[in-house]
């Protein structure tokens, strides 16, 4: 008889056992847990690579995965010392925090290195800021992700990029010095750099022609390999940039013109030209553009206006169903649960409100939809996005010119139109050493916030120099995923303020991947 073994990633759930038992195949030593934990994607990004978490936590309210998240934090803390300052925002973050504490106490007092190496931990829920992932990305890496899809730090460049028959799989990380130089740049700055670099390499090659034999030997042995490698990656990135350019200017019939879309997004962020935006979205629907694109704009509309008016909501939903099919009733329902695409309350709108209220009431006797109520609560704070973005000055005043060549703040990742809310929160939390002074902002955000600070007295005393160093190191944990734009913004922040920011996440997402996890795929 053949012997089987099942490895469960990251851990075996009781439900699985009981199903196996029901099927009569359960035996001792059948199942092993395989807790993979973090997968390092780069020097500063570690990821659980679990995109399913977003859906299950923020839509279904199933916190099973949060256990894994907490576990990963505990794992980090046993290696790098307990992180003294923890700040969090969001419902899931709160649960993770308490789970982390329980898990740590269950582990017992393990002797962790006395000196902690990470000074701050910022835990953020994805539903604190849905706007950022909904925007089209314009940094180089972000665009690569939007257009080619980066999977676990690997991108698959098709024939259109390589200009050959074969497609090439490339690792994208800081090992590639060229890539690390351009990855976080605004796209407009990528091409000039690439061409300058190309000239440089050419010059280096040319140099070899005029060399003495002896010099040539050292050149071949030392520099040539590096040059060749660089040449290779340069070709790839130039190819990729060209494809991006094509997307950008021409657009396609399925996707629309990126320039137009960016324009609409910017007006949505600024809150201007509401009608124009709605019309554009309608056009998208009528033309049956890529569904995820349409949905993304719809969600962005909802998020920036804190929920659509019932009239607009029903109108757009109606048209959407006509274009993309009736089954998307479920998609809308899911998005509503997740708080991505909601109806605003007008007070007079009786039927919907009463339903929502009924849901709110039924929660006390145990309804499944606490998220609807939490988004309901958010809705009542009218126009929270405007308030928050004004308070944190996320959006510059319209009309101000933005120098993309030499960015002065994190807004450059969206062409100067918007500073990602999450990144601003991180900046504030580290700067203020807590949420103090931000209460009236956080009040508007979904979920609760918390902070856990080390004893101040210890800090006031002569703390060791390594402690000082640690206080410059921060770990930012995104529950539900992070976008490359946010990564770029945080890197920029780190460089600007002299911090070292490490990013932990449950997955790397972009707008499309985020939405497609909510889209009902029945068939």
């Amino acid at each position, binding site marked *: 008889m053949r012997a089987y073994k099942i490895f469960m990633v990251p*851990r075996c*759930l*009781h*439900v699985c056992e*009981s199903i196996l038992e029901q099927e009569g195949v359960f035996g001792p030593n059948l199942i092993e847990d395989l807790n993979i934990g973090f997968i390092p994607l780069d020097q500063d990004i570690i990821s659980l690579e679990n995109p399913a978490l977003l859906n299950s936590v923020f839509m*279904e*309210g*199933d*916190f*099973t995965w*949060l*256990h894994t998240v907490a576990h990963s934090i505990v794992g980090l803390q046993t290696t790098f010392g307990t992180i003294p300052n923890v700040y969090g925002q969001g419902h899931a973050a709160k*649960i993770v925090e*308490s*789970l982390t504490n*329980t898990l740590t*106490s*269950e582990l*017992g*007092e393990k002797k962790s290195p006395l000196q902690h190496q990470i000074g701050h931990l910022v835990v953020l829920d994805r539903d604190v800021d849905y706007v950022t992932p909904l925007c089209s990305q314009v940094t180089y890496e972000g665009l690569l992700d939007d257009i080619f899809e980066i999977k676990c730090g690997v991108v698959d460049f098709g024939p259109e990029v390589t200009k050959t028959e074969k497609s090439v799989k490339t690792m994208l990380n800081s090992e590639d010095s060229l890539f690390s130089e351009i990855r976080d740049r605004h796209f407009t700055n990528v091409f000039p750099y690439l061409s300058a670099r190309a000239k440089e390499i050419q010059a280096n090659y040319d140099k070899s022609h005029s060399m003495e034999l002896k010099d040539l030997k050292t050149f071949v042995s030392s520099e040539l390999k590096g040059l060749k490698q660089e040449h290779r990656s340069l070709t790839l990135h130039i190819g990729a940039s060209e494809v991006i350019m094509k997307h950008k*200017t021409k657009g396609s*019939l399925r996707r629309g013109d990126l320039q137009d879309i960016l324009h609409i997004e910017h007006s949505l962020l600024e809150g201007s030209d509401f009608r124009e935006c709605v019309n554009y979205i*309608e*056009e998208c629907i*009528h*033309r*049956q553009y890529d569904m995820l694109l349409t949905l993304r704009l719809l969600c962005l509309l909802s998020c920036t206006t804190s929920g659509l008016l019932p009239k607009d909501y*029903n109108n757009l*939903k*109606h*048209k959407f*169903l*006509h*274009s*993309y*099919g*009736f*089954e998307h*009733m*479920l998609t809308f*329902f899911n998005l509503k649960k997740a708080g991505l695409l909601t109806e605003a309350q007008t007070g007079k709108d009786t*039927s*919907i409100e*009463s*339903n929502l209220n*009924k*849901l709110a009431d*039924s*929660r*006390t*006797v*145990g*309804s*499944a*939809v*606490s998220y609807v109520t939490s988004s309901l609560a958010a809705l009542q704070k009218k126009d929270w996005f405007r308030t928050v973005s004004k308070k944190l000055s996320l959006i510059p005043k319209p009309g101000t010119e933005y120098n993309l060549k030499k960015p002065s703040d994190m807004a450059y990742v969206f062409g100067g139109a918007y500073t990602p809310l999450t990144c601003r929160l991180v900046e504030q939390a580290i700067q203020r050493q807590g949420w103090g002074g931000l209460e009236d902002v956080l009040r508007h955000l979904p979920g609760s916030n918390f902070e856990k600070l080390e004893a101040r007295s210890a800090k006031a005393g002569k703390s060791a120099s390594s402690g000082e160093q640690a206080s410059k190191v921060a770990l930012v944990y995104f529950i539900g995923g992070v976008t490359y734009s946010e990564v770029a913004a945080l890197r920029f922040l780190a460089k600007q303020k002299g911090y070292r920011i490490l990013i932990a996440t449950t997955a790397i997402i972009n707008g499309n991947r985020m939405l497609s996890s909510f889209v*009902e795929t*029945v*068939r």
Partner: protein
Amino acid sequence: MAWTHNDDLLCLQEDGQVLIYNVFGQFQRSFTMGKDCRDNKVMEFEVFIGQQGTGLVAMSGLFRFLLVNNVDDPKVRILADVPGLKTTPPSSWCVLPGSRTSKVLAANDNDVYLLDQGGHCSQQIPTGLTANPSSYISMAVSVDGKHVALYMNTGTIWIGSSDFQEKYCEFNTNDGRRPKQLLWCCDSITSNTRRLSDRDIAIVVYWPKTLLVVGPKKDWVRYSVEEDLNVPSGMASAVLSADMDGIRIVTVNRHDFLQHVPNAVEGIFKVGSMAPGALLNDAAKEYNHQSEKADEYLRMLLDNGQLPEAVEKCTLAAAAEFQPRIQKLLLSAASFGKSFVPSIKLTDLFVNTCQNLRILNAVRDFNIGIALTAAQLQHLTINCLIDRLVSRREFQLAFHICKYLKIPEDQGSSRILSHWACYKVQQSNVDDTSNARAIRDKLQSARGVSYADIAEKAVESGRKDLAIKLLEFEPRAAEQVRLLSKLGKHTLALEKAVMSGNTDLAYSAIARLRERTNLSEFLVAIRQQPIAYKLYLKSCREQNEQMLKDLHEQEDNFIELAHCHIHDSCSTFRPEDRVMSLHAALDSFSKARDDFGVKATEEQLQLLRDQTNFEQQTDHSFAELSMHDTIHELLITNQLKKAEQLRKQYKVNDKRWWWLRIQSLAEIGSFNELESFSKSKKSPIGYLPFIEMCMKYNAPGEVPKYISKVSQEKRVSALLKVGNVKAAADLAIQTRNLVDLDMTLKRCGVEHREIAEQVKGALMQLQRR
């Protein structure tokens, strides 16, 4: 009956049943020696301590030997039969403990056989045997299994190595009686490390009232043994037991220990000894008498460089002594000497010895009654000693030892405390609340105590309430929940599982609750836990959809219910089922008073009906198509009328209609019709789409027809889209529109350098103005 190395009492019954009791006579476990023993009875048996733990050899009624290497993991091995043993028992036998496997030596009259586990039997002939015995009536193997002694019926003892290759001596006792006991007295710990010297071993023969100690050099000593008066004379009442560094002699009212005088002690206390240890001891004595001789002795040692050795010897001697007075004397001598020798090694030795002696003296106290030598303690290890103390319920002493030795809490004091608590919960005379509180108070400071284990003990002794109270303190939710549900407190378990935030636990608690209670009770219980309820819904969604719907219905959660139905309708392929599910959804939406949902669902039903109609009328399949796609499908199959009908029915607005028409006309290549369509009415979506569609379906020739219709401001971008940079540039220069010029310039690129120059020029002009 015998003791194991864990202080358990092992009893072998005649039928081969082995029962193990703890030190308080409470039954622990049992195993059996097998069928052979059951059928033929156990005649004799011997317990030995090998490297794997306590072993056991039994001789069955058929004179077959059965061996168990470790009673904790009882595997019975049957050894080979001894040749010639059919009706009479072997004249003598004993166990030869080995490192991995143990063997049995058995003698049949004057033949000695070695039986091993592989079922082999080999005859052994003692080398250089001069006596001519008719049988070996007793034999003994030393504790470490290195030496063997054979007692012959002539009264001669052959003493040699256990492989029978080396003979130490033959000693004639002139006593042909079978000795009551024959055993070795040897220091197995030291002889492991040192080449055996003649002094280290001796064979002890015990007859009633007499104890004969014979060394390998035929030197001998005779002791008399005090016998119990109640025992008829001629019978022996004392019991001898070989330990690793000596022999214990237990008589009715005494417990004596017979061992070789340790070298260190001998060196110091031998009359007139000039060994370093003795000198140091003398020096210390003189120093205490304030005599100048102290200096003399000390110098003698220092000059010879023997002081470190002297200190070591004094310390070791102290360790070997039993009386605190002499220990103190020797230790002070050692400490006196040590102050002249800066050596960390010696200091460590000294400190360890002091600690060990304190512990030894404490356990040697008659209340505890564990008489150990220092060497035995070393072999046993402190942890084992603590275990023994704990199993004797000497919690306090064990606790103090742990504290004293600074043993890490989780191995030391916490462990003892939890043992104490386990014992405590078994006492039934204290009421639950105060008991729980007492345990909590004691254990609060200790880390790593498992309340769950204690609670489990409480359950075993039938005190559920106490167990539940104790579980309140358990920090590990998994243990807590497991035990609570074992106790049948499923609701409480669920509550705790939910509180722990570990959904897996909650799931298992839910599942267990579901198994044990009936449906209505279950629902009542689970509704009180919102999170658990949510989890249950999720598991229902995956496993039991009907249940999910029922739940939603009971909760009046019609919106959820409606969406469940929609989900159903989407996941089935059979049209009838689909319609049925949609009707159910419709019903739910109307109950929820969701007008939009009602309308949308009605429309979908209508669409399904229409699609079926069309399918019957044409051969096309409309399955899975949206309204938009349906119209599109109709249009490209030239069924304008039906499309119009749908348009009216679903109030398709003009914009969509135009998009659909343009797209489908271009798609089927009816560009003439497209043109006439463009003229039918003013386009609500402009004329740009016409151009786009023409380009898409490879009809650039059609484009000029529409260019003129595109509004002025969009014309340039339209031209650009078509790829006519030249025309776009001309137009842009004409209109002098900055934005258009800019856009054109961007598109010019490399291949249109001249145009780019023109545009640049125009731009410059404009900007100059």
